[in-house]
């Protein structure tokens, strides 16, 4: 039985057909260029996603400016693609965070998540002016 994928390496979006061969390799057809083969292998054998979400801000004990009042969440993301099947675990860990201000963009919030080498980082600076 063959599996179907749409290659997203470029805007053409080739419709790929993939056969799983006995020795664990893949036979890819429908691709217009070699990148289709690479994409199919990554996507079927080791799919990964960059996770971007938001985390709660810990406002307890802070007298923050009015302009910050409507900002309830801080954007965060993984600094590299993470195995797709573990994305929900990354999300759960992000949602459990309470981020203290001030914070600088790029600050590591979760280091080396589950030994993957992937970090979760803050995707914006917040509250630095209030401190200065």
């Amino acid at each position: 039985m063959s599996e179907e994928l749409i290659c997203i390496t470029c805007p053409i979006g080739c419709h790929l057909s993939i056969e799983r061969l006995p020795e664990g390799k893949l036979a890819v057809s429908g691709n217009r260029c070699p990148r289709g083969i690479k994409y199919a292998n990554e996507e079927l054998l080791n799919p990964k996603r960059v996770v971007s979400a938001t985390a709660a801000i810990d406002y307890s004990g802070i007298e923050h400016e009015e302009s910050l009042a409507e900002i309830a969440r801080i954007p965060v993301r993984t600094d590299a693609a993470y195995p797709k099947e573990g994305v929900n675990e990354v999300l759960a860990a992000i949602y459990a965070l309470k981020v203290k201000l001030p914070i600088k963009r790029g600050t590591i919030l979760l280091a080396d998540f589950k030994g993957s080498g992937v970090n979760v980082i803050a995707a914006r600076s917040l509250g630095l002016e209030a401190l200065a």
Partner: protein
Amino acid sequence: MKELYFDSVVIGGGAAGMASALELDKAGLSTAILEREECLGGILGQCIHNGFGLIEFNEELSGPEFAEKVEERLAATGVRAFTGLTVMELQLASELKTLYCYSGQHGVLRINAKLVVLAMGCRERNRGNIRIPGDRPAGVYTAGLAQRLVNIEGYIPGKDVVIIGSGDIGLIMARRMSWVGCKVHAVVEILPYPSGLTRNIVQCLNDFDIPLYLSHLTTRIIGRKRVEGVEITPIESGAIMTEKAFVIPCDTVLLSVGLVPENELSKMAGVEINPMTNGPFADSMLMTNIPGVFACGNVLHVHDLVDYVVEEARRAGIYAASWLKGNSPKAEARVKTGANVRYTAPSRVDPDKNNKLYLRSLIVKNDAQLEVRINNRLVKSIKKTHIQPSEMLTVDLGPKELESVKDSPDPVVEIAIS
């Protein structure tokens, strides 16, 4: 009333406004950015997903990171940024432009400038714009509003979601809503093909097994107080198949049905608007019909990548500064949209310089040909492996290709796709 004077004023502090202000400052002009929100960055602040900056910064960033990096460049300049300030009226006719503004901090302000750059961006089309019949319950949001609620203000607008329209913001929100624990039941698209990028279809819908109904019309929103469902009707060979209509239960509807450049201020001030883009007509210097008034970014035409917005805005800043020094094109040719081209921006080219034109196709096609003709003579032909309306195309036209423009009194440059 407080009165201020600058060489140049930029309306809007998003990606376009910041990028053009950087260039105006670099050219030695005293420059102000006028921003309605409390912080700079525009819509980037709520676009927390990845994929910005591959062209501009050579790395994949989220929207807030992209904005912050541009802001950091701005902080190192003399540009004065006003935030929380709304421009109420523009008076552009005389040499010195006057802007009437209001802000909580400064009260009513009169700001004067020798040139104005319009960079107000765009806003979302809503339910009224596409006339969806039915009840008027709570729970109907534009996708961008929902994005702001979820990503910045920390509210989740509902649990069971149907998204109408397959634009990129709608697709991105399908993933975002799934990742905050909602169930997205469907994306409904009236056209036979998706309006968003393929990579977003794959990563935002297929990853979550969200069905995409192409060629389906939303015929009714159902619900007395809160949305209870949407009625969807298939379209077959152009006919609305009423007897095949079905209802998808949900408590929230997100609309991703297009963006419109925000030109209320410009229209009031007499700026001429191109009905194909809903943005101003721009000449080869990105100047509108009013001398000294320039436009760039999504207020000019809706872009699909912020990197292109920045590129265009930078050019607008450079051209505006150059115009103030007395430079203007000796001869310009108007650009005509030929077969299968929806629009080009700008709509004029200067045969003495390198022009970059952005354009949108009306068709989806593999192995297409983009052709440029001057007075019906072919001067450039570009092969495109794949084109679709949702992906903006660019064409570079330089003095060599445009040489014959100078031979004719009213030259026409036509761009067509076949």
